[in-house]
């Protein structure tokens, strides 16, 4: 079987080095298969987070040849194997060991977003009525598997480390899913502008490019939220119209 070289970044808490491993590759293999082979045959202590091997758990996020990708969904036949394949941990989060990073910041961010707050039930039995066509819009956002590749590639977090003032594309998608829900009555626009830093997004669309679930993050979530923030805070005519329009019903 042919062999390929995998250049894996190894180390602990930010200290480490590139290490080259050569292993056999065969048809149908993905990067995670190669990493597992290396782990089984050459480096039993190689730390790598993984779970489903099917692109649904979002655990095996890494940077392959410089681009954030899921290791389990990156087929080797899509990579040039005549030169070493680089595999690095994500850059936007604190390093733990080898390919594993500490993504717990994301869970803390999620707690700070105002939760779903539905209007009172439509029927006496405590249920609601809504049209399928209205729910479909937010269904796209529910495909997110929380792999955090979008957070990793976002230069606001990756290069500028604005973790304190910007929630990142993943949680803008989460907020969009709540804010655009036909039953929701909560107002998150002030938080988006002030605390969650939607203005930091400069629409590079990198988050959309790396999303393994193909969520149209920028066009369907972030820009519509930006437009709602414009309505609320930057558009004097919209402000005027709002005086005569009732707010979201509770």
């Amino acid at each position: 079987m042919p062999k390929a070289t995998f250049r894996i970044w190894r180390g602990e808490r930010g200290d480490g080095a590139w290490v080259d491993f050569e292993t056999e590759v065969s048809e149908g293999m993905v990067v995670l298969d190669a990493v597992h082979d290396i782990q089984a045959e050459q480096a039993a202590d190689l730390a790598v987070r993984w779970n489903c091997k099917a692109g649904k758990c979002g655990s095996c996020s890494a940077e392959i040849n410089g681009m954030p990708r899921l290791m389990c969904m990156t087929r080797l036949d899509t990579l040039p194997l005549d030169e070493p394949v680089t595999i690095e941990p994500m850059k936007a989060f604190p390093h733990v060991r080898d390919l594993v990073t500490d993504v717990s910041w994301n869970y803390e961010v999620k707690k700070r977003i105002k939760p779903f707050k539905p209007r009172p039930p439509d029927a006496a039995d405590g249920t609601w009525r809504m049209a399928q066509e209205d729910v479909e819009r937010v269904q796209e956002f529910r495909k997110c598997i929380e792999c955090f590749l979008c957070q990793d590639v976002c230069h606001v977090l990756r290069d500028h480390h604005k973790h304190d003032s910007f929630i990142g594309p993943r949680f803008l998608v989460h907020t969009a899913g709540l804010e655009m829900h036909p039953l929701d009555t909560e107002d998150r626009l002030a938080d988006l502008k002030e605390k969650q830093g939607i203005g930091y997004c400069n629409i590079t669309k990198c988050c959309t490019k790396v999303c393994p679930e193909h969520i149209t993050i920028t066009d369907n979530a972030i820009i519509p939220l930006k437009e709602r923030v414009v309505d609320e805070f930057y558009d004097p005519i919209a402000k005027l119209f709002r005086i005569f329009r009732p707010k979201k019903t509770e």
Partner: protein
Amino acid sequence: MTTNGDFRLPQTRGFGETARRDRWWVQPTVVFLALSAFIVYATFRALENGYHHYEGGGAQYLSPFYSPLLFDVPGDPSGHAWFGDKPSWWPALIPFFPAFFILWGPGGMRFTCYYYRGAYYKAFWADPPNCAVGEPRKGYRGERSFPLIMQNIHRYFFYPACAFIAVLAWDGFVATRFTGADGSTHFGVGLGTIIICMNAILLGGYTFGCHCMRHLIGGRLNALAGKPIQRACYDCVSALNKRHMLWAWSSLVWVGFTDFYIRMCASGAWTDWRIF
């Protein structure tokens, strides 16, 4: 096993540093060159103050760079000016360029457009140069503070842009009206007619598919059920919006080509091909 240096996380890479193997620099370079070329050409044409209308063979073509033509260029009556000649109150010390009266509209629309923002932040500011590529600056304020907070003015360029589309569509209609030898006008189609009409269509596709339009037409609402017309409009705009980048570039190239075609015809270098 071999080792190749080390780094700490989270790390900040230097300008252009990346582990990407693809030609990531091609896209921002092409955008930089294309937008720069357009800006230089449009500025040249606005300053040229001529060759913006063509009457050969009875045609009534007007360059989109000069449309709507509020006042004629001094000494060059076109028959397209809304208010006739240069106003008498115009200060003699200030040069008179009719194109600048209107170019702020489409220029502002494109400058604040969500697609172009993402494109020129990469191509002109390297912020970032491309995805997962190191940046030249450490500080970052985004669109939260001045000057980029002004990008939120986008919809105020969108409103006049809609009016510009109506004017350009009218120009397309006028381009189907040819003046005969006896002074009467009749229907006709020249190559210029097709180019001018195509220009209005492409600019319409770009303008009416913009994110701002999508928001205003229905995206601002959480429920469109029971509003079939608004739903249809929203779906239509969303369909255009999916190809917004394509509309943006095709309309930009075509508006430049339309002006170029009319310029070449008006200068006598080319003759408009009359189809019927």
